């Protein structure tokens, strides 16, 4: 800015100053006021009236302490703010402040010291914004987040306890059937033997289900992100599944896959589950053909795992991802109904998405998006 050196410039400058003052007067979203050295109010704008409730006549000349709670005044918060602003030039504070009607609002305050030409503090400019709504909204969000976290913990705990406490009586059931057979075996006929088998099988199935439930609940605890070579991952999975692949006479075609940042064990489980499913849900008499591809998108990798299996009817496209949901009788396709629930949880752990494109009898394609993560 240049110093006005003619009468015209000075007039122009005064005019601008006046307009500035008028503007400050009119601003409604901010309380803008001037304080003298000791915090007495010298000017008042519309915003101040709106936020704090006082009219200019009521408030001018009073000390700005009236905006502070009794507790704050006792601790001399207002005095401290003035001293700090005088020392530092400008300071920002947030806190609950008092309106004329004694209700509270959450104020965000900027206090700036004003100096004379010699540099001595002659007063303060105080700008206050009412952030009560934001504050309350933040609080609600925070409370919700805490609540969800608490519920999750409870649920984990519940699943763990349930699995443990269910496991013990089950173990006794199995143990005593075994003991019965061992000690009294000769007394029973073939039918009784068959009954024993049913009991044992039932118990073992239940044991399995509980194990799955616990695995599901434990999924994603104690893990860390690392670089995962998906190509190597798929190779190792294929070698793990080699017996099933051979038995099904399946061909698996894996196109070049990326190295990405993710949870290795979980990604292994994800792809293994999907490949196992593709092998399992094959059409009778038709050799499975499975294809794995990945495509780089703007913010994520998109994997496509396609098969030529039995497919999935549209009405089940959501349901298959829920835990313990099965579409087929156990005699037709063995399983616990947990594989895809795991897959969904794993993908969601990565912040991604899983869905399926399919028509009954025409194969399925599972689509997985895994957002780029960094270590």
């Amino acid at each position, binding site marked *: 800015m240049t110093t006005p050196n003619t009468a015209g410039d000075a007039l122009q400058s005064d005019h601008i100053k006046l307009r500035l003052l008028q503007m400050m007067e009119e601003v409604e979203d901010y309380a803008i006021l001037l304080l003298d050295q000791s915090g007495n109010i010298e000017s008042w704008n519309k915003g101040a009236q709106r936020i704090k409730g006082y009219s200019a006549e009521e408030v001018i000349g009073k000390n700005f302490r009236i905006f502070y709670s009794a507790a704050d005044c006792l601790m001399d918060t207002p005095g401290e703010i003035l001293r700090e602003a005088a020392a530092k030039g400008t300071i920002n504070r947030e806190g609950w402040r008092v309106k004329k009607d004694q209700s509270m609002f959450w104020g965000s305050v900027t206090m700036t010291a004003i100096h004379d030409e010699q540099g001595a503090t002659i007063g303060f400019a105080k700008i206050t914004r009412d952030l009560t709504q934001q504050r309350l909204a933040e609080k609600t969000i925070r409370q919700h987040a805490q609540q969800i976290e608490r519920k999750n913990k409870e649920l984990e705990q519940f699943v*763990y306890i349930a*699995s*443990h406490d269910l*496991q*013990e009586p089950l*173990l*006794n059931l*199995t*143990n*005593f059937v075994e*003991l019965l057979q061992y000690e009294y075996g000769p007394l029973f006929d073939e039918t009784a033997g068959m009954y024993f088998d049913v009991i044992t099988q039932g118990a073992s199935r239940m*044991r399995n289900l*509980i*194990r799955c439930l*616990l695995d599901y609940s*434990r999924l994603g605890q104690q893990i860390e992100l690392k670089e995962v070579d998906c190509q190597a991952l798929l190779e190792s999975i294929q070698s793990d599944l080699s017996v099933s692949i051979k038995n099904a006479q399946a061909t698996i075609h894996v196109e070049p896959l990326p190295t990405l940042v993710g949870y290795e064990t979980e990604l292994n489980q994800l792809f293994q589950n999907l490949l196992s499913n593709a092998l399992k849900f094959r059409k009778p008499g038709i050799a499975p053909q499975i294809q794995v591809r990945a495509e780089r998108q703007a913010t994520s990798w998109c994997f496509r795992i396609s098969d030529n299996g039995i497919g999935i009817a549209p009405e089940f496209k959501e349901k298959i991802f829920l835990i313990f949901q099965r579409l087929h009788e156990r005699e037709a396709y063995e399983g616990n109904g947990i594989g895809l629930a795991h897959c969904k949880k794993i993908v969601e752990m990565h912040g991604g998405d899983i869905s399926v494109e399919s028509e009954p009898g025409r194969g399925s394609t599972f689509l997985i998006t895994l957002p780029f993560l960094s270590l």
Partner: protein
Amino acid sequence: MKKYQDLHGVLLVDDDRFTNLIHTKAIERSGVDVVVTAVSNVTDALAFLTEQEDSSQAKPGIILLDINMPGLSGWDFMKAYHALEDRFKVKVIVTMLTTSLNPDDEERARLDNQIVNFLHKPLRPEMFIELVEEHFERQF
């Protein structure tokens, strides 16, 4: 019956008496000559250990310890056990885990230098023989 050096008794600690029964049966079936004592809580287990004279035929060489018990748990037992005088301690402590479902317990058992092993229930005769063979000398 097979006899082993320094192995007279086995102490079973499990709040479930059926599990104790199954484990007693398994030890009987293993053919190892030992006196089995079963208790259902930590207090009784500690009392049993500190009451045994050195000459006692029931003085345990092995403790099979359940972890998840109401009130004082297997870990509470271990805490008290660590504070016992050496003469009351036994050669082998094995924690018996209900299932392989809790890796945390396995980890904790691994870190306790008094616990030589953890096994998953139920104990079977061959598991017991293996355990004995590993830690005790056969007497002929």
